[in-house]
């Protein structure tokens, strides 16, 4: 029992952070679609989940959690989790090299599909690989994560069952949401230290302090659910799907709380294009909706627990 990231896991996260600090500064969010992707590919990040014999790092989902969290902190655009998680599904050469977007069951649209070389379509009866599709832009909340309706004729069936892929995508997205929430909190704290009203920094007022403390609590206790879900998926634990839903719901709610609080602390300026804050706000909401909103995942947890599956893992 060592429920703490190893040095290697942390080192991958730190390497991703270093790449993104240089290659994905906030200014890049206004001009680029995939800043930093080249650097992450060079680190092997997108092939991390591939086995070594397929030129991958042979890692589990757990191993890349700190790295995924860093992509959330940096607000890295593009189908990051999709490309990393889908890699093991793809034909040998494609995994880790090609950009992938995903259409999930019950999800109408594929994010960043216009950037994707391949689409993975998850259906209850299995996964499909789509090479060419007609894309129709659909309105969304996140300017850096555009949505597309997808129509296609030809597809290749994939052997992987759709369920586990979807759970892994939900948990990978939850890890990003933890990073988004932490960055929103950090930006709120930074602003509250310098913004002065009534002759004092607003961060010295109890109402602001306690609101941000609540965000800290929410993030602090969402993260271990995400880590556990990844371990459970990697281990094929019995209630891993339920635990994945618990993780996605908690991370989505923590990020939504962090976003609402960030906006409230910043006031009207947080609402505008003047500050970079809006990118993280939009990401909290767009990833919160991706692969099932918190309401959807809460319902799944409830159905499992009420149905009698209240087993704890470990």
């Amino acid at each position, binding site marked *: 029992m060592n429920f703490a990231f190893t040095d290697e896991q942390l080192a991958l996260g730190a390497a991703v952070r270093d790449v993104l600090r240089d290659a994905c500064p906030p200014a890049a969010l206004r001009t680029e679609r995939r800043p930093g992707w080249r650097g992450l590919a060079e680190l092997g990040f997108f092939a991390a989940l591939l086995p070594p014999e397929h030129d991958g790092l042979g890692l589990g989902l757990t191993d890349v959690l700190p790295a995924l969290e860093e992509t959330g902190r940096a607000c890295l655009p593009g189908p990051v989790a999709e490309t990393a998680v889908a890699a093991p599904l793809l034909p040998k050469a494609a995994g880790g090299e090609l950009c992938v977007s995903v259409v999930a069951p019950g999800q109408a649209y594929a994010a960043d599909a216009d950037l994707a070389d391949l689409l993975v379509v998850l259906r209850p009866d299995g996964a499909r690989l789509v090479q060419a599709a007609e894309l129709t832009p659909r309105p969304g909340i996140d300017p850096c994560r555009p949505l597309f309706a997808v129509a296609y004729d030809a597809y290749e069936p994939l052997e992987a069952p759709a369920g586990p892929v979807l759970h892994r995508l939900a948990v990978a997205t939850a890890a990003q949401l933890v990073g988004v929430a932490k960055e929103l909190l950090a930006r709120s704290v930074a602003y509250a230290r310098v913004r002065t009203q009534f002759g004092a920094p607003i961060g010295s007022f109890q109402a602001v302090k306690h609101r941000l403390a609540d965000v800290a609590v929410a993030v602090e206790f969402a993260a271990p659910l995400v880590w556990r879900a990844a371990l459970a998926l990697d281990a094929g634990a019995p209630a891993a799907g339920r635990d994945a839903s618990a993780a996605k719901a908690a991370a989505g709610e923590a990020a939504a709380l962090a976003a609402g609080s960030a906006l409230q602390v910043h006031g009207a300026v947080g609402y*505008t*294009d003047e500050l970079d804050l*809006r990118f993280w706000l939009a990401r909290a909401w767009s990833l919160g909706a991706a692969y099932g909103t918190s309401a959807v995942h809460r319902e799944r947890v409830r159905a499992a627990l009420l149905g009698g599956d209240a087993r704890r893992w470990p």
Partner: protein
Amino acid sequence: MDLDFSPAERDFRAEVRDWLSANVPDPPLPSMDTAEGFQAHRAWEARLAAARLSVVSWPEEYGGRGVSLIDWLIFEEEYWAAGAPARVTQNGIFLLAPCLLRFGTPGQRARWLPRMASGADVWAQAWSEPEAGSDLAALTSRAEPVPGGGWRLYGHKTWSSRAAHATHGFGLFRTSGARHKGLTYFMFPLDEVAVRPVAQLDGLPGFAELHFDGVRVEESMVLGEAGQGWSIAMATTSSERGLTLRSPGRFLATADRLLALARESGDPAAADRAARCWTEAEAYRLHTYATARRIMAGEAAGAASSLGKIFWSELDLRMHALALELLGERAGETPWLDGFLFALAGPIYAGTNEIQRTIVAERVLGLPR
């Protein structure tokens, strides 16, 4: 105590409902923060005004019908239930007009109110400055008297809603050093003000920055007297927080739509949240009937209006957040996404809810400062 509408009130409701059902634009107008949408909304205001429905509670001489607050609430219920357009004139009719009616000269009222009622003039509010948000009395924009009459305005206002397209603005400017008593309430045409539109979360310029570099305004553009600005503005924000800015009708319509969405979803926990919101919208409606009655009896809304501001703004946000959870990535195809972005600002504008809670604690409950 009763909740019975009179025959006249029922007739009025029927008239409003019929007119709206024949006239509400379908498809909905484009966003009022686009140039095209702004003009379309202004044209809608003119049609409303032609039916004498744009400002029903104002005196007839200014374009209203002189009806009671209860009738106004009825109008609002029908207006929002019909899915009618948002009011591009709202800063003027709900914030400035109450002050003009109370503190304006007969000349000011005659000059500005009818044009406001018809949408000929569209007013933007200009309260905040970069360093004066919640702490409004810290503002530094100033007005200097011009020998021979009139003033020149200097300074920098921000988060000015509607200012990107509006024709006029109103706000406080400093005419002496005293923190509160040095402020004066000015109206001004926007054509000589440097307006820099500011994009909001939805990418549209719902805000603007206003830069005043000696903008000349006539003496008649001062509302009340020099130095009275703070107390007039507080009367405004009191009405802003009270009845006039966010009538229950808006939230009743939202609650009905939310209930339909929750019913569709089949998620009983979501249904529970929606049912709570629906009941809370009812509570706000009933509470407002009681408040309206008190105001009609001559009482002031006072600090208690802060209770309402807290309640409706957080209800509105909860409703839209739930809708987004139910819609997922389809939210952008519905009016709920824009509604959510708008609702997010509710706990911030018109005095943040932190300020409102402090007002409730100190002025309603009597806790020490």
